């Protein structure tokens, strides 16, 4: 990686296009490595502006039933953190521009070693990390090697973040700010657009970083509306729900991949049409 970072470049490009972005979340290895590879490869063409890849963990405490199930499917298929990085490497060989953000829980990273993970993630072609259970109070041992590797360390803000807390979170964040729009777990409640707008405005008063909004965004309409307010909308549970539905119906896994990419297209079409 040289020059400007991919995440910053992508948000700058979105800004010049005058629209918000679509961030898609899928879990690595869900439902298996090959299908996951196909999904990732197809996401940019289907309209994903940035890609979050979930690093599977046995105990995803901040996730609702859909992503919990995705984690279990992925682990059952034999995925590991090392193989997750292989997926990133494979993707990066074909796509030099779409930012990849690795999202997950700290223990698998700690188990590999924070330094070793940071180097390996950079070499694989990842651009940033979001670690759900590493608040600023505990992040130093990972943030230092991530910074050193030249990756972005994306921090989260939530409806419970008051101004004092924002002052703790926002300085030192990089890439973008991930606003968790509901107090809760992934894929359950949805926030009112007015509360999202208020929160995004409050964050923007304190940082120049782009703001992506996630949790509870399921439909093309919600994504479009959110991407008008914020710099990007994140969709996760609804996408992995397509895999669950295909699996439950006993469909071949090529159809699971097609379903995820199909929903991505619908989301992207709405987001791209959504500029005021």
């Amino acid at each position: 990686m040289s020059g400007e970072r991919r995440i910053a470049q992508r948000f700058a490009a979105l800004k010049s296009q005058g629209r918000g972005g679509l961030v898609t979340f899928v879990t690595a290895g869900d439902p298996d490595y090959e299908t996951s590879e196909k999904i990732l490869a197809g996401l940019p063409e289907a309209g994903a502006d940035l890609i979050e890849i979930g690093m599977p963990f046995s105990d995803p405490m901040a996730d609702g039933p859909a992503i919990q199930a995705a984690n279990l499917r992925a682990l059952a298929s034999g995925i590991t953190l090392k193989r997750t990085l292989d997926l990133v490497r494979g993707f990066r060989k074909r796509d030099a521009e779409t930012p990849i953000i690795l999202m997950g829980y700290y223990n698998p990273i700690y188990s590999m070693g924070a330094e070793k993970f940071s180097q390996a993630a950079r070499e694989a072609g990842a651009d940033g990390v979001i670690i759900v259970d590493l608040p600023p109070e505990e992040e130093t041992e990972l943030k230092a090697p991530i910074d050193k590797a030249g990756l972005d360390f994306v921090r989260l803000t939530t409806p419970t973040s008051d101004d004092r807390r924002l002052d703790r979170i926002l300085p030192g964040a990089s890439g973008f700010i991930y606003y968790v729009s509901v107090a809760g777990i992934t894929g359950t409640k949805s926030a009112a657009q007015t509360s999202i707008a208020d929160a995004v405005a409050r964050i923007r008063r304190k940082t120049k970083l782009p703001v992506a909004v996630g949790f509870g965004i399921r439909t093309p309409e919600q994504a479009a509306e959110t991407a008008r307010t914020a710099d990007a909308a994140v969709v996760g549970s609804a996408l992995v729900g397509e895999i669950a539905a295909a699996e439950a119906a006993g469909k071949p896994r090529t159809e699971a991949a097609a379903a995820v990419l199909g929903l991505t297209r619908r989301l992207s079409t709405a987001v791209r049409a959504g500029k005021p």
Partner: protein
Amino acid sequence: MNKINTYRGGPDEHGHFGLHGGRYVAETLMPLILAVERAYNDCKADPAFKAEFERLLTHYVGRPSPLYFAERLTEHFGGAKIYFKRDELNHTGSHKINNCLGQIMVARRMGKTRIIAETGAGQHGVATATVCALFNLPCIVYMGAKDIERQAPNVFRMKLLGAEVRLVTSGSQSLKDALNEALRDWVANVDDTFYIIGTVAGPHPYPAMVRDFQSVIGREAREQILAQEGRLPDQLVACVGGGSNAMGLFHPFLDDPGVAMDAVEAAGLGLDTDKHAASITGGRPGILHGNRTYLLQDDDGQILEAHSISAGLDYPGVGPEHSWLHDMKRVNYVSATDAEALDAFQLCSKLEGIIPALEPAHALAHVAKIAGKMARDKIIVMNMCGRGDKDVFTVAEKLGVKL
């Protein structure tokens, strides 16, 4: 090696015990965790809080619990004098009530109106349901489907007490998954809900707060043994799953160099199998449920399912202060198998007329290994932290008896 002035000074201001502890939680919970810490610090400094806590321990729980010389077991093993700290005589049948009373008082001070808890054996669930009944607060208890099956009497007790018991079917369907679900509930209900964690684990300040509320066990034991024997014991023994009863007994003695401490983990079918719950003996440090501590995990850092005949010890982690005390070599972490615990369960029932819970039966199984090798003038204090009524169905099944 590490020379320090006190083993009782932890955690540091960030909740760390050496490498362990901390606050590894989702950002949504951070403001709340910090508020719990502030509220607990206020409570600690308030004499009125202390007086009310002590009043309830005396008149509601029935403290102090006796320190009982187990003469027949002492004879049987033919070595050290064995004392039981009788926390199984507490209201609700275990030490769990000590902590629940303390935490619900903190919750009330914070103005929280809804209580959640996780439970494994059901003892903590029953104790939480009990204090919620006492203080008229709604109570939701998360319990693994596997545990609901093997601890049916406690499930019914919780319902009688007015609690809602929510079945957890995710993951291994036991204590670890009940904790996950409770944390998911909490993050979705931060405004009105207080999470009463049952053991010395979770994000700071929980490990320290639960230890402080449980330390009444060790403080009483210390006074009682001085009164009965005129000196401190040579050896403390307690079982450890998350480790709240062990911390409660050990903490007031940590700076007494003459007092050795053995904490007994559940070895399940054996440490050489993959069916055990010995996080310290068989695990390595990792991050789960808000803290860094010894965990059972695979090479990829995925958490493994624990196994123990005792639902209360069936947990792949352990409180972070235990992990630190292990690193410092202040406490000796050992283990006892399902079979050894079952033997101890029966022996104690027959020789002492005390049916122990399967959890302290692990502690007694270790006492059985060491007492006979110690001189007759040595003194062991073991924490009898729960009674076995809840376990009679499990034990009957293991012994091939149809009830």
